[in-house]
């Protein structure tokens, strides 16, 4: 057996192939990752580590592999965002109000992964109820980005809300991870940590058993170090699920087969409204570089217009808090999690929610309650849903002119912890390029494509037509090959 350290360097695909070739065992692969997890605790990626469970699952995988019955993900250690309910394993959503909650059921997405043989390393930290873009709102502390600016020790945020997912995959302590994306929570952290993250079409992955934030926008998806790895994960995560009323009944293709590298003749839209004021030149340059890579691969680019882009974020910040205020009504101290007693039942509710929710969650629940309250519904919520129709209509029209869209993923590289603490609006602007995909329900992917002047990863985003994940992955694969992104964070975090 080769050095254990080398096993954490593998991609998901090469680890899968190594297991099938019997180059190493699932237990060895899992032990290497468990050690890496333990050594990287300073990054605070995990809310809960599950090493015993991981080894037990790895042993079962080894038995199946020995019998020639290997499943798609057999023996591959991954992390699970702590927003997915896991039967018998504490699930917190990053909130004090859910501390100690032990689900008695398994989310469909995680069950799909276990059915395919994946190994659970633990539950990954996240912004509280997935509300945030920097993983600074978790009750369980900030997640730290393994990347640092060149010659600077300032701790950087890993993006959010899937910050434990992005940080753990980038630090090579998990082969892949699950994420969820309501306004950019997979793609933005993927861009901030130099990994690949995909939000599938709304309805592609079941929401059943995923702690709900904004139900009309939430979508689970994979995060990994290569486009191929993301394709492999998505095939397992996606399914039609009768338990989710918005799950779409259409066959799940073999996404890995879509990575042909052939995009000759495709038309890629370049939306002019994404050239926002004050966009750093290096982001502009990266975007231009992406266009040239597509040309070199034989694709054409066309200028397109998505005129309502500017209104996507404000519409999102009405729709998402409105849905959150309804979804979070269930945390009342009665059914699960925290209870703070009071003089009567009303006081018990108020005390429980007052001490159980963090500042950002309270802010959004209050905004949501206000915009849905009598007399304001039409002015805010109805208006936002009309604007959302306009945004979806923009995309429908543009997709008659092109096959997919290329944009930057974020307006900047990762920033320092605490830098945007006092200004919710500047934090919200992180999602300016990703949120449109949620409002219109489209598939989107972020691919690490270059480094900022400070030596930090930057991502390009491909948005596609509904249920056209294969095309999105194919284009992403071409960008990945052209970019040849092989930069990685220097390991400063290992305890040993």
């Amino acid at each position, binding site marked *: 057996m080769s050095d254990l350290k080398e096993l954490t360097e593998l991609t998901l695909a090469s680890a899968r192939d190594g297991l099938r070739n019997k180059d190493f065992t699932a237990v060895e692969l899992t032990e290497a990752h468990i050690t890496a997890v333990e050594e990287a605790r300073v990054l605070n990626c995990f809310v809960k580590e599950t090493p015993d469970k991981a080894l037990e699952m790895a042993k079962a995988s080894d038995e199946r592999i020995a019998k020639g019955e290997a499943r798609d993900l057999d023996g591959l250690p991954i992390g699970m965002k702590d927003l997915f309910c896991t039967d018998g394993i504490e699930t917190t959503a990053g909130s004090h109000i859910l501390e100690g909650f032990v689900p008695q059921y398994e989310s469909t997405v995680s069950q799909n992964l276990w059915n395919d043989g994946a190994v659970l390393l633990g539950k990954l930290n996240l912004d509280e109820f997935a509300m945030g873009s920097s993983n600074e709102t978790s009750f369980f502390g900030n997640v730290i980005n393994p990347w640092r600016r060149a010659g600077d020790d300032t701790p950087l945020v890993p993006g959010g809300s899937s910050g434990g997912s992005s940080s753990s995959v980038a630090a090579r302590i998990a082969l892949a991870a699950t994420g969820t994306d309501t306004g950019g929570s997979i793609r933005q952290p993927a861009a901030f940590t130099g990994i690949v993250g995909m939000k599938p079409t709304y309805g592609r992955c079941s929401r059943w058993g995923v702690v709900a934030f904004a139900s009309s926008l939430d979508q689970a998806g994979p995060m990994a170090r290569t486009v191929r790895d993301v394709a492999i994960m998505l095939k397992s995560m996606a399914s039609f699920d009768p338990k989710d009323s918005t799950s779409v009944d259409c066959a799940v293709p073999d996404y890995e087969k879509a990575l042909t590298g052939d995009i000759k003749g495709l038309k890629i839209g370049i939306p002019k409204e994404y050239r926002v004021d004050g966009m750093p030149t290096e982001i502009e340059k990266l975007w231009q570089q992406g266009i040239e890579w597509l040309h070199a691969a034989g694709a054409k680019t066309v200028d397109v217009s998505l005129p309502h882009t500017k209104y996507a974020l404000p519409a999102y910040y009405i729709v998402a808090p409105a849905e959150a205020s309804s979804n979070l009504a269930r945390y009342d101290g009665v*059914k699960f999690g925290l209870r703070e007693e009071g003089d009567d039942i009303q006081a018990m509710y108020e005390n429980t929610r007052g001490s159980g929710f963090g500042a950002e969650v309270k802010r959004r629940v209050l905004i949501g309650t206000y915009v849905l309250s009598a007399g304001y519904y039409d002015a805010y919520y109805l208006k936002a849903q009309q604007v959302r129709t306009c945004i979806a209509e923009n995309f429908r029209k543009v997709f008659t002119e092109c096959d997919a869209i290329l944009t930057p993923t974020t307006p900047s590289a990762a920033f320092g912890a605490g830098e945007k603490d006092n200004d919710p609006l500047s934090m919200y602007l992180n999602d300016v390029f990703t949120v449109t995909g949620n409002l219109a329900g489209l598939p989107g992917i972020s691919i690490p494509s270059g480094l900022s002047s400070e030596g930090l990863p930057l991502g390009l985003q491909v948005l596609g037509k509904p249920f056209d994940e294969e095309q999105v992955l194919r284009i992403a694969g071409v960008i990945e090959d052209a970019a040849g992104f092989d930069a990685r964070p220097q390991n400063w975090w290992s305890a040993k």
Partner: protein
Amino acid sequence: MSVDKDTVRRIAHLARIAIKEEELEPMTGELNTILAWVEQLDEVDTDGVPPMTSVVEATLRQRADEVTDGGYADRVTKNASNRNDGFFAVPKVME
């Protein structure tokens, strides 16, 4: 539109979130910043535009009206801080 401290206090009560008196002032400021920012939506002409009700073009599925799950009150109430014989228990609501 903007909100004052009393409105925030009222919204917090509607949302059943206890807010300390000293939290009201900063919260009011933050909510007003967000509300002022979302008001740019007023620039969009939405006359005759239907509000989005579903992001995927699908009609909700129907299913047979039959019991397919359940019968385990013990598991359902397992995470409650106070439960009694398969029921959730709450402070007394009637004298």
